[in-house]
C-alpha cells in the first residue's frame, strides 16, 4: 500500500481510494494576533475517510471551518476538484457538495426531524420561486422526489420512529444522528463531521462508527472527520492528520501516526524545555 501515490491507493481492507479531491495548501488562520492554524497542508482523497485529530485547542475545528467556508484563512489556498477555490460564503461551499455537522449540534430545534432533513435537500432543489409559491405541478413532483431521497436516508440511519418528532425533544445521541441525516440528504461529495462521537456513551459511539463506515461504503462518500478520541479514529479512518497548537505534527496511516514520537508527546504530554 503506497499512500503517496497521487492516483490513489488500496486500503488494508481492500477499498480503492481515488485521486486528490480536496487539497489544503499552506493554510494559516489568525484571530487577531492568535494563530489558530499555522502553515498546514494536507489533502483528502476521493472515497477515503480522513481524520483530523489532536488535543483540545489544536485548531481542528478551525480547520473544518476553513474547509466549509465559515472561516477564511489569511494565507494559503484551498483546492477542490483540481481548481483553486476563491473565498466563498458557507452557503456557496454547501452548494458545491460539501455538507457538514457541528460539534455542538446545529439543528432546527423547532422543526420536525423530517423537515430538518428536508432542508438538507435545499441545494438540490431547482424549481423557482414562483412555481414553489404557487405549488405548480413541477414543483410538487420535485418535492415528492426529494421526499423519497430523504426517506431513504431516514431508513438508512434507522430513525423512522422519530420522523415527525420536533428535534428539540430528542435526546443528544439521536440529535447527532439527525444532523448526520441532514448532511447526508444533500448527497454530498465531501462530508465533514465535527466530533461526531463527542459526548456519546459507548453504545452510541459504536452506532455512530458503524453509520460512518456504512455511509462511506454504501454511497462512496468521502468523509473528513475530527475527533480527539484516538481510539475511535484509529479504527475508522484510512489516513490521519495530527494537529497540535495549530501546527501539523503528523500525517499518515493510523499505524504510522500511532508510532510517531511527536504525536505521542502531544497526547501524553512532554516537558517543554
Amino acid at each position, binding site marked *: 500500500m503506497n499512500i503517496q501515490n497521487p492516483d490513489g491507493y488500496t486500503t488494508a481492507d481492500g477499498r480503492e481510494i481515488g485521486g486528490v479531491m480536496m487539497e489544503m495548501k499552506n493554510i494559516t488562520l489568525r484571530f487577531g494576533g492568535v494563530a489558530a492554524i499555522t502553515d498546514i497542508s494536507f489533502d483528502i482523497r476521493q472515497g477515503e475517510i480522513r481524520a483530523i485529530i489532536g488535543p483540545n485547542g489544536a485548531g481542528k475545528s478551525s480547520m473544518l471551518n476553513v474547509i466549509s467556508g465559515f472561516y477564511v484563512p489569511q494565507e494559503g489556498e484551498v483546492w477542490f476538484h483540481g481548481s483553486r477555490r476563491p473565498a466563498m460564503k458557507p452557503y456557496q461551499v*454547501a452548494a458545491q457538495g460539501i455538507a457538514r455537522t457541528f460539534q455542538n449540534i446545529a439543528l432546527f430545534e423547532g422543526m420536525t426531524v423530517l423537515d430538518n432533513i428536508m432542508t438538507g435537500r*435545499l441545494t438540490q*432543489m431547482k424549481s423557482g420561486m414562483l412555481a414553489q409559491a404557487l405549488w405548480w405541478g413541477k414543483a410538487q413532483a420535485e418535492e415528492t422526489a426529494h421526499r423519497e431521497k430523504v426517506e431513504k436516508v431516514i431508513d438508512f440511519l434507522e430513525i423512522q420512529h422519530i420522523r415527525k418528532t420536533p428535534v428539540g425533544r430528542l435526546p443528544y445521541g439521536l440529535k447527532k444522528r439527525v444532523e448526520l441525516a441532514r448532511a447526508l440528504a444533500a448527497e454530498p461529495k465531501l462530508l465533514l463531521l465535527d466530533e461526531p462521537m463527542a459526548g456519546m456513551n459507548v453504545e452510541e459511539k459504536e452506532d455512530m462508527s458503524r453509520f460512518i463506515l456504512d455511509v462511506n461504503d454504501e454511497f462512496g462518500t468521502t468523509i473528513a472527520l475530527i475527533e480527539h478520541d484516538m481510539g475511535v479514529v484509529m479504527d475508522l479512518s484510512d489516513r490521519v492528520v495530527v494537529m497540535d497548537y495549530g501546527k501539523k505534527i503528523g500525517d499518515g496511516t493510523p499505524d504510522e501516526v500511532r508510532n510517531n514520537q511527536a504525536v505521542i508527546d502531544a497526547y501524553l504530554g512532554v516537558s517543554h524545555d
Partner: protein
Amino acid sequence: MPDTFFFAAEVMINGLMAGIMYSLVALGFVLIFKASGIFNYAQGVLALFAALTLVGLQDGQIPFSHVINAIFGTELHHFGWTLPAIVAIALTALVMVGMAIVIERYILKHLVNQEPIILFMATIGLAYFLEGLGDVLWGSDIKKMDVGLPQGISETIETVTYNWFGYGFFIDKLDIVAALVAAALVIALTLFSQYTKYGRALRAVADDHQAALSVGISLRFIWVLVWSIAGFVALVAGIMWGSKSGVQFSLSLIALKALPVLMLGGFTSIPGAIVGGLIIGMGEKLFEFAIGPMIGGATENWFAYVLALLFLVFRPQGLFGEKIIERV
C-alpha cells in the same frame, strides 16, 4: 331580546373587524421578528409608504412634484393618466420588493451580528426616513384611496338580521373584505412556510443561522425575501387602512397599536398576531361601550396598552409565543 344585547353584539363584531386591521400590521412585525429577531419599528411606515405609492401611481401623480415645482417654479402635479387598480397594486408590490433589496443592501448587510437594540434603532431611523421620503415623493395631503373595494354598510346583512332578530346589524362591507383578505393571507403564508422550499429555508433561518448556512441557505437572500413578504403584507394593510380612513400620515401610528397586539399574541406567532388583533379590537370597543360612559370615555386610546401591560405581568411570552426557559 333587548336591543342593548344586540347593540353589544354589534359593537363586538365591529370590534373584531377593527381588530383585523391591527392584525394585518402585526403580521408584518411577526414575519420579520421570527426570521431575523429584528423588531421592525418601520412596519407601520411601510404600510403608509405602500399606500402613498399605490395612490400616487394610480392617480398618475408626478413623484417629487413639490420639490420640482419649488426649484423650477413649475406647476407640475399629475401625468394626466390613471392606472387600473390592479396594475397600480402590482407596481407597488414591485416597489416594495425593490425596497426590501435596498434595505438589505444598505442597512442590514452592514449590521450583521450586531445587538438587537442596534437593529431596532436602525429600523427607527428607517421609519423616519421612509416617512420623509413618502412626503417628498407624493406630498403630505390626505389622499382618498379607491381600489374598487366595496364601501359602506352592508344592506344585505342589515335586512337579514332585521328579519331574524328584529335588529338590523350595521357592518361595514370593507371590514368584511378585510377579514376575508386577512384569512386568505394567513392561509397563504402558512402554506408557503410549511410546504415550499423557500418557506422551509425561512423557518430554518429563523431557527439557527449557522445551521442554515451549512445546508446552503444564503442569509442575504432570505432577508430580502422576508422583507419583501413583510412589504407585501404592509401593502395589504395599507390598502385596507387607506380605503377605510384615507391615506394620511397618521397611518404610521397604527404601528403602535400593533405593539399591544404582539404582546398579547406573542412576537413569534402568526396565529397569535391574528388572535391578538381580534382580542384588542373587540376588547377596546366593548370596554368603551360598557365601561367608557362611566369613566368619561376615550378609553380606546389606552385600553390596548393597559391590557398589554397586564399580559406582560402575567404571561410575558404572550398567548402563542414560545416560553423562554433558561437552563442553568
